[in-house]
């Protein structure tokens, strides 16, 4: 089990108080809250603390891909295979699973928003980790790709005991896939926030 404790001093400027976030392996957790409450900021905090956390982590950011030049996913996979072979999952399986094969050689800048999102998801899931932190992974995805991602989350949690921490506003996702929801809420009358399950 992984315990992540927010330190009061770090979060004072964001108004977060001490709290405990308990995450078990093989589960999908959702982080839910109003816009601007600090969900992505929390992921940024986790990233800075990732070296102190014993679990391997992989992050999916919200920001759109805007690479320089005519780089395709194929070129990035080539670099990752050369330099990060030990940290790679079965990326060919991921490409087939998400039907990205035909887009592999196309420059990222020529892809649609949804296709770019898929490329980001593949690159995030391609890293060997125990905890995947996905910030709004379903943005721009069509229905078919959404259901593929649900399917992947369920398979990965059941067969590989991987855990997922997902920021999303999708009710269907919350009800169908998620094991537990963390609500980010503003405490009445103050700047502080707390997490409740």
């Amino acid at each position: 089990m992984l315990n992540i404790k927010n330190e009061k001093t770090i979060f004072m400027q964001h108004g977060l108080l001490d709290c405990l976030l308990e995450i078990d392996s093989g589960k999908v957790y959702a982080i839910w809250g109003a816009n601007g409450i600090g969900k992505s900021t929390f992921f940024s905090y986790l990233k800075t603390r990732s070296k102190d956390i014993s679990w391997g982590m992989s992050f999916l950011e919200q920001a759109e891909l805007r690479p320089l030049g005519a780089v395709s996913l194929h070129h990035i996979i080539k670099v990752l295979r050369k330099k990060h072979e030990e940290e790679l999952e079965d990326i060919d399986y991921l490409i087939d699973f998400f039907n990205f094969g035909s887009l592999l050689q196309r420059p990222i800048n020529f892809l649609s928003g949804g296709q770019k999102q898929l490329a980001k998801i593949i690159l995030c899931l391609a890293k060997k980790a125990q905890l995947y932190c996905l910030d709004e992974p379903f943005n721009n995805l069509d229905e078919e790709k959404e259901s593929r991602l649900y399917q992947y989350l369920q398979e990965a949690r059941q067969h590989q005991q991987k855990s997922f921490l997902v920021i999303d506003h999708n009710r269907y996702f919350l009800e169908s896939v998620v094991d537990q929801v963390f609500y980010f809420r503003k405490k009445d009358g103050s700047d502080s926030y707390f997490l409740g399950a």
Partner: protein
Amino acid sequence: MDQILTFLEPNFFPWRLLAAAAAGMILSLSGSLVQSITQNDLAGPSTLGINAFIVLFVIALHFASRLLALPLPLEWLSLILCCAVTVLLLFFFWRRNCGVAVRHSAFGQTNMDFLILVGLCFNLFVGALFSLFEFFFMSLNWEFPSELWYGNFRLSLMSNSLPLVIVAIFLWGAALKMAPRLQLMSFSSHLAENWGVNGKRVQLQAILLALLGQAFIINFFGVFSFAGLIFPHLLRSISFFQSEIKRELLWGSLLCGIIFLLLDFACTHILILGAEVPVGMLSSFLGTSFLFILLINRYRRRQQ
């Protein structure tokens, strides 16, 4: 043996050709480094104010040498001081855990554009300061490096060309070593960090390398404005260089060295009213025109 010695004599050996080729390589490498770490095709040593920063040192040192009557080789002193201050500044930023804002939220991209705007303003400021000091020096009949602002290779000797070649080879090797990390950074800084690349360290290393190369060129041969901006674009217009940054660094820089050599050769032999046009003047004219076109194209893309 005599023939070999004659060949190596400063006046005979084509040091000018070597200097031009090495400068072209360095300018191309600097531009590629800066653009890949910022993921911005408007970034370059000129637009980020790196060249202006170095020129400021040269002016300050000339002024100080006049006041204090320093009997020292100013070019080397300026180069050493510039590099020392840069290392200190970068160390300071490193300790404060700063980095160039390349976050790709809409605000993050605006940060980079703002940085380029500041760099261009700094260029204008240093240009004005340069003119002011030139006027001041000329009034006092003091020697001033007027040719600094428009670089040329007329005064190429073994003493300044050979170090430049060594720097070019060093930069080439260092950039190639960084190529996989630069490829990930130029794709996405978030992705690079996710895969264990220390983004800030790569940024600082790249800026230091770019500044080292520019400092050598500017101190000995002058400023070649916007060449570092044009060369990466020129390379990326060729399909061979479009997708892999390693090719841009490895072969592209060599190609740009040859292009710069040919440009200097053309300037030497095609005289305008009996005078040689400095290559730096040409690069400045072409570079600003190119920047103008880039900005218009970018505006049109955003409108779409």
